[in-house]
Every structure is written in structure tokens, then in C-alpha cells.
């Protein structure tokens, strides 16, 4: 009996190992372990054995049953896996094919630059405002300490609507308007279209500026430096530095130009820059006359202001070397869709 069992075991296991198909495995299961299976029959016949042999043979038969069950189960899993991988093989993808194009549009680079600038100044507590683009001579020039016929006005190629109405040539025309709201301290950022009467490869008649104005008690030059450092490091990168270069504007005193170290030559001096520095834009401490024009007492308050070109800083940041700045406003989708 014992011998018979062991033979059955080795035959059964051998057959299971050779079989890799699920249906055939089920058949084997029936053949050995089914109700009329060979092992089942043996187990049923155990009762006929002498009493003393029963435990030993019984134990052996059960072990064999478990072994065969286990082998069939394993083979079934293998068979299943084989089937799955065959299907997967059939569902093969050429993953080098391009993805399906999403029809997503593009924001203009002016919008992208404005968002980024606004966000940085927001973090410093500057709130954004807007003021008229078609502006009176008073806000655009006179209130900024540039009386009629002042030579400083020549710096702006101004478009006129009427003798006293202009297209604002700079965002500084928002300064006195903001002061007139009568709320102090002031910490505004004014980003807007500006207009100057010139067009060539490096000038467009409409462009954007961002104007910062901070007025409070005890505003000082070292704070102006702090704000510019923060902006430059956040907008251009940690490795960029600024310098203040003395300059002159009618509506600030002292006045400066802010330069940034040239990214191309690492401040060694190259064709692109002026001795290692590139001009970012103008700034200064608000002229006391401008404060007075805005109804603010210059003996109690001081402030700083700056007005820089949006397109200019964006081009400097992105390293876009456009041969002609007019491309920005040509609205050729082959250009716009690159951004």
C-alpha cells in the first residue's frame, strides 16, 4: 500500500509539472483528487487496512494529497501568468510614438512677465493698482516736478491728444493719483501700458512699465536697496547683484539708475553690457515737491519710487535675444506659441 501511494505521488507530480494549461490541470485535479480520483479512492479504502497500519498510511496519504494540491495550485498560477503575459505581449505599444496633442493655448509674454513681477512685489506687501493710460499733463509731467517747457520733458517722446492730454509715457503718472487717495503708508505697484513716439528694432510705441511707490515715515535709501535686492534675486536669480548709479530725474532726489551684473560676461565687460553692468531702470527718493503735489508733508514722510520696463526685464531674464523687439507685438502665432 505504501509503495502504491508513493508511485501514485510521483506519477501525479510528474504529470502536473508537464502541464501548463489551466483546463488540463483541472482534469488532473479530477483524476487524482476528484470524487472518483485515484487518491480519493485510496483514502476511502483505508478502512480495509489492519488497524495498526491505518495511522501511518493515513498520514502519508494526506501528505501526498496536500503535495499534489499544492503542485496543481502552483502550476495554475504559472499558467495564469503565462496567459497574462501573452495578452500583454499582444497589447504592445510603441512608446516612442508622440503623445496626443492637447489643444492648449499660450499667454503673451507681457502677461507672463506681469504676473511674475506682481507676485514678487505682492510678497513684499505691495498692492497692485491701475490708472488712466490717457492722462492729463498734470499727472504725467507737471505734478512730477516737470513744469511746461522743462527740458527734462524731452526725454519722453510723448503722444498728444490735446494740449493738456497725453498718452502716458510712463507709469509714474500714477504716483500723485495714488497719493491723492489719502491713505498712508503707500506701497503700490502700478503695471500698465505706456506710450512713446518711437519705433525701431529696439523701441515700440506701446510697452509696459511697472512702477513701485513706497511712502511712509522714515523710508530710506537702504530700504530701496533692500527691495531691489529682493526683486533681483527672486526674478533674475540668486547669483545676480545690483548697483546704484547716480542719475537724475526731476521727480526723485536723490535719483539713481539700477544696474544688474551682466549674465553673459559675469561682469567682466562685453559687447552687450556697459563695463560689466546692464541698466535695469530708474529709481529714486520721491522729490519733496511731488509729495507736496500729492498732499503729503515731506517733513513727515519720505518715499522711494521706481519705474522699469516689463518687456526689458523679461528679455533680460529670459535671455531672449530678439533681433527686433517689434516681434513681441506682431502677433504672429508662430512667435506667440513658443511661449
Amino acid at each position, binding site marked *: 500500500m505504501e509503495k502504491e501511494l508513493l508511485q501514485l505521488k510521483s506519477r501525479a507530480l510528474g504529470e502536473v509539472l508537464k502541464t501548463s494549461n489551466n483546463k488540463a490541470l483541472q482534469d488532473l485535479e479530477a483524476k487524482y483528487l476528484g470524487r472518483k480520483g485515484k487518491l480519493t479512492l485510496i483514502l476511502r479504502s483505508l478502512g480495509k487496512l489492519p488497524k495498526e497500519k491505518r495511522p501511518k498510511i493515513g498520514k502519508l496519504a494526506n501528505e501526498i494529497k496536500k503535495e499534489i494540491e499544492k503542485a496543481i495550485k502552483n502550476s495554475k498560477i504559472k499558467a495564469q501568468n503565462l496567459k497574462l503575459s501573452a495578452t500583454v505581449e499582444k497589447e504592445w505599444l510603441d512608446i516612442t510614438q508622440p503623445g496626443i496633442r492637447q489643444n492648449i*493655448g499660450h499667454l503673451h509674454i507681457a502677461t507672463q512677465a506681469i504676473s511674475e513681477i506682481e507676485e514678487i512685489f505682492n510678497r513684499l506687501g505691495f498692492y497692485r493698482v491701475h490708472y488712466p493710460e490717457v*492722462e492729463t499733463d498734470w499727472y504725467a509731467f507737471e505734478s512730477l516736478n516737470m513744469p511746461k517747457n522743462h527740458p527734462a520733458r524731452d526725454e519722453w517722446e510723448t503722444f498728444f491728444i490735446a494740449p493738456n492730454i497725453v498718452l502716458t509715457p510712463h507709469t509714474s503718472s500714477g504716483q500723485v493719483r495714488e497719493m491723492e487717495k489719502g491713505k498712508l503708508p503707500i506701497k503700490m505697484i502700478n503695471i500698465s501700458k505706456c506710450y512713446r513716439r518711437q519705433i525701431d528694432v529696439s523701441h515700440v*510705441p*506701446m510697452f509696459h512699465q511697472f512702477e513701485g511707490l*513706497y511712502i511712509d515715515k522714515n523710508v530710506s535709501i537702504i530700504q530701496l536697496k533692500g527691495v531691489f535686492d529682493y526683486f533681483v534675486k527672486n526674478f533674475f536669480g540668486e547669483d545676480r547683484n545690483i548697483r546704484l548709479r547716480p542719475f*537724475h530725474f526731476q521727480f526723485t532726489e536723490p535719483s539713481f539708475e539700477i544696474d544688474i551684473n551682466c549674465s553673459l560676461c559675469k561682469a567682466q565687460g562685453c559687447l552687450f553690457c556697459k563695463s560689466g553692468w546692464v541698466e535695469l531702470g530708474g529709481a529714486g*527718493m520721491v522729490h*519733496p515737491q511731488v509729495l507736496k503735489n500729492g498732499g503729503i508733508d515731506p517733513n513727515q514722510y519720505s518715499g522711494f519710487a521706481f519705474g522699469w520696463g516689463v518687456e526689458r526685464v523679461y528679455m533680460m531674464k529670459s535671455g531672449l535675444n530678439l533681433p527686433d523687439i517689434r516681434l513681441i507685438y506682431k502677433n504672429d502665432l508662430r512667435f*506667440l506659441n513658443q511661449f
Partner: protein
Amino acid sequence: MNIKVFDNWLRDYLKTKVIPQEIGRLLSCCGPSVERVNKIGNDFVYDIEVTANRPDMMSVVGIAREANAILKSFGKKAEFLPLKFFPKKVLKNKLSLKIEMENRNLCPRFTAVILDNIKVAPSPEWMTRRLEKSGVRSLNNVVDISNYVMIETGQPMHIFDYDKIRNHKMVLRRSKKGESIITIDENKRNLPEGAIVIEDKDRLIDLCGIMGGANSAVSSKTKRVVVFVQIYNPLLIRKTCQALGFWTEAAIRFEKGVDSEGIIPALWRAVELLEKIAFGQVKSKLIDINNIQYKQKKVKVSFSKINQLIGIEITPQKVALILNSLGFKTNIKRDAIEAEVPSWRANDINISEDLIEEIVRIYGYHNLPSILPVNQILEQKTIPEFFWENKTKILLKYLGFSEVYNYSFISAKDLEGFNLNKNKCVKITNPLSSDWEYMRPSLVPCILKNIADNEKNFSKIKIFELSNVYIKKSDNNLPYEFLLLVGALVDKSDKNLFFEAKGIIEFLFKELGIFNIEFRVENALNTQKGRTADIILGKEVIGFLGVLDKKIASCFELNSEPVIFSLNFTKLIKKATCKKIYKSISKYPLYKMDLAFVIDEKVLYKDILETIKKAGGTLVKNIQLFDVYRGKQIGSNRKSLAFAIEYGTNNRTLFGEEVKKTQNKIIQAIQKKFEAKIRDDKYN
């Protein structure tokens, strides 16, 4: 304005061993911007930007004086050597000049000296070299001297041929209407009224402060000359230049203001050179008419103010030292310093802030720390407009639109082309071209041009612009400015382009939290009849949507018929909100039934929808149109609409019978009202 300064010449007035590149770098930190130091052979030339407030630095001597102060502040050894001059006296054989002046204000100071025995010849090599390095062409020794002294001292001057001045008489006056003069460059200048001119016996011989007359110019035969050094009224010089559209080196200096105390040294410097290189001899007394006596100014500033504005403390001693190095005489009075302004800075230094600028720039901006102001929370906030503007732009981007930015200008032709009245538009008096004569009252014409430009490269176009437009109020008032949002879609292969656009607008409104909008059938001027809708918010028309009129499309040279929409964004976003409404989610299932019927082509969806809602009552939860069909089977001028209707209640499960009963009510209402034929194939 930029000037060129020759290093070799600069060192006549600045004794230092500091090399040119270093001088350039240090000047830029504290004074005039040295944009480049150009090396030409063994010579160095500084390219310097001088700001409008510092005409005193538009000269070799001026730069030397400034460099001296700056080099010293960096601890470098330097010494400023002022211009030396030697007045001459003549006792016998005197020549004379009769001067008449219409108005003392034209010419605050008038000086001249006459020289004889002049020999006009080429200038010596050293002089031509210096002039050429400074960007001036050499002509002859006499003319060169006037240029040389101007570059050196900043004082413009003119040299007349004494014998060409008829009657040796000069009348300095303002020009009258219709007068003209031929200047030494042989150009006829038709003068505006009020230019400062000089007339001799009977003709104009000088356009003062700008350029001399050809009729009195020095020539190779000249023997006797008048060295002529003046200060003119800056405003009149400027007005004349503006009227003529013509500026000269002399005029630029005069309009910005020259040093009233530098005039005599410059005159004697010119005389010295005329003697030295043109063999002249002084033959007159010094003619000097001083109409406005120079008074020295004093400006005071407190130390607390200096320290407050700069942000750090600078000692009184240091403040005094800096001001002294720039030529200010100072007097420390307890908590303030009083400074006597040198004559060459008389126009520039007026208030205490002006002195603070001098102090801090020489102290060095690079020596100041950089401190962020404490961030207070302010009452003022960014206006919400920008939030919605941003949100809308991003939304449109992800809906496939590319953003365009057009110039705010428009031509009369394009205004007419889009049926816009140019009289209601803001007109530019000095436009760059006739294409850009008006400020645009609509963004559509520009968008149409964008389509025309891009059509050859793209068969599908989706673009938008969100920009201000300008509507005239009256001639002397500022116009209305408000934001418009305009979009355009082009796709010849898409028959549903109108509804694509409508879907976009509906989605946009939903995202802006606005639900009470309505599209109303309208026949607009610029869009096609029957394919146009007004967009109504509340009771107000805030925009339109439509297929562009065929005539306008051809007027703008389009190959397609774009669908365009235009929305008054400024009005729109006043209603925008982030508010959300939560509706409880029903536990009970919804029954979905389809319903399709054939109906006359002209019956509006909107009316059917209302009928379904009314007939269905509260059990109808959702109604969705999912198919519109037109075809032979259903006959011409008919359309088939298929709806999916969902029924339900919030508090229990509906019985099948209830649903059927309601659906029947809806069918009956539609049949009765629209003579509709129910399509059984869809009804089960």
C-alpha cells in the same frame, strides 16, 4: 547726453596716477556714468553720459573737478588743477563794437574781445588730435579754438569776422515773423518768432546760442575777429531749437545753463589760444555787459534729515569733507550744515535733498547696507480686477486660446471698416503714422487683422485679447477707459464653431460665478443675420457673439468667417464671485428617460426647455439636449431634438408609474404647443 573725454586732455586738469579704466569704474559708482573706456592706439577716450542737471560736467574741466572728489573718496591720490587764465589790457589803437540790446533778459551776460593780425591756418597737430578724439572735426585754427574752449570749459562761444559786421554794430533782439538766416552750415533757417538774433547795420548775422551766420563767418582771408562769449536765456534757446528741430553742441549747453562765473575765464582762454596759434593781438577792451549779477546761494540741511533719508549715520565731519571736495564751502551749525553752492552748480542745488544726493553719492551707494522694510499689513489691497483678469486669461489658455497684444492705435480706415464712428474716438494729434491715428474703441478690428496675418500658416485659430479701449467724452476730458475681452475662432472644418464659442463663454461665466446670463437673438451690424446673439447680464447687454459679417470679412481680407465674441470685462467682473452653492446629494436614485421629437426648424430650444420644465414640475431634475438631427427622413424645415430627462425627488424613491405619468404630461405639452411629432424609436 553723452560726451567724449580724451584722457590725455583730462590729465591737464587732474593730476593722478589712477589708470583710465579705474577712473571710469569709480566715476560710474559716484558720479557721471562712464559707459565705456575706449582705447585707440595708446590713447584712452571716456564715453560719458552726463545727466541733464549737470551741464557743468559737459566739459573736460568739469569732469576733472568731479573726478577729483570721487577719486579722493575712494582714498586715491588726486589733485584738481583749475583752469588758468590771463586777462589782457590794451591802451592804444583800440577797435570797437557798438552793442544794442532789446531786452536784458535775452542775454544775462554779454562779453567780447576783438583781435587783429589773425592768420587763419590749419590747427597744430596736438589740437586737431584732441578735437578729433572728442568727436569734433578740425576746420582751421580760429574755428577750432572756439570748439576747443567749449569742450574744455563747457562755455560755448562764437568767433565773428570783425570786418564782415557792417558798421561794427550789433543789435541783439528777438526775431520777428518771417525772418530767416543762412547759418554757417549753409542752411537757410526760417526762424520762429522770438529766436534770439543779432543784426548788424541791415542784416541778421547770428542765430544766437545755436549757430553763427554764414555772412559773418571766419574765412581764410579773415584778419580781424570778435571773440564772442555769452550766456543766453535757456528757455528761449530751447524754444527756438524745438521750433527748428535743430540742436547744436552750443545750444544743448545753453539750454541746460552754463556757469555764469566761467564766462570770463573761457574768454581769456580763447584769447590766449588765438595769440598762441593764430598770431592774434588783442585790439579792444573787454566788452562785458553783466545784466544779472550772480548771487551765491546757501542751502542748509539737518544731520537728522541726512541720516533719515540715507538710512545710516554719516558724521558731520564726513559730510563737510564730501561737500568741500565738490567745491561747496560749508559751515556746521549744531544740528545742521549750511553749504555755499559753487557757481557751476547754481541751477542744480536748491533744496536740502539736493545736498543729500551729493553727500550720499560721494559716500558711495556701494557702501550702504541693504535692508528690507518691515512688512506691514495695509488697508489698501490689490483691486479684484487683476484676480479675475488673471483667472480669465489662464482659463482661456487652457481652452486652447493664444493671447495677442495689439497696439492701442487704429486707423480711420479700420474704424470705418468695422462701422465705428471716428468722431467718438480719441484722436492722437501727433501719430507715428496714419495707420495709428486713433485710440481703439474696440479690439475686434485688430483681432481680425491678426487672423488675416495668421491664416496662411494656421487652418485653426483661437485667439483672444484682454485690453483697454477708449471712448471719447469730449475734447478736453479724459476718455472712458475700460477692459474688453475679445476672442475669435477660425476652423472651416467645424460646423459647430458658433456653439463651441458659446460653450466657452458659458464656461467662462460659470468659472466667474455668474449664472444669470442670457443669449438673446439679435441682428447686429457686424455679424451675420441669424447667427448672432447679444449677451445679457441681468438686464444689461454686455457683449455679443456671432459669425463675422461677410462684407467685413472681405474688407479685412479674410479667407474665413471667424466666430467672434466681445465682452465688456470691466462690467462683467463687477458681478464675478468666488461664492459656491452646495446642493445636497440625494440618496434616492434618478430615473433617466430619453425623449425625441420632430419639430419646426424655427422653434427655439429655449422655448421647448421652458415647456418641459413647466410640464414636468418638481420631479424633473435634469434636462439635457443630446442630439439635434436634420435630414430627409424627417422632412425639410424640420429638426429632431433628443433630450435626456432625469426624474427624482430628495425624500423617496419614485415609482415607475409616476415617472411615466410625468413624461406623458411633458409629451402632451410639447405636442400641443409646438405641433411636435414624438419619435417612438427614442422613447422607451
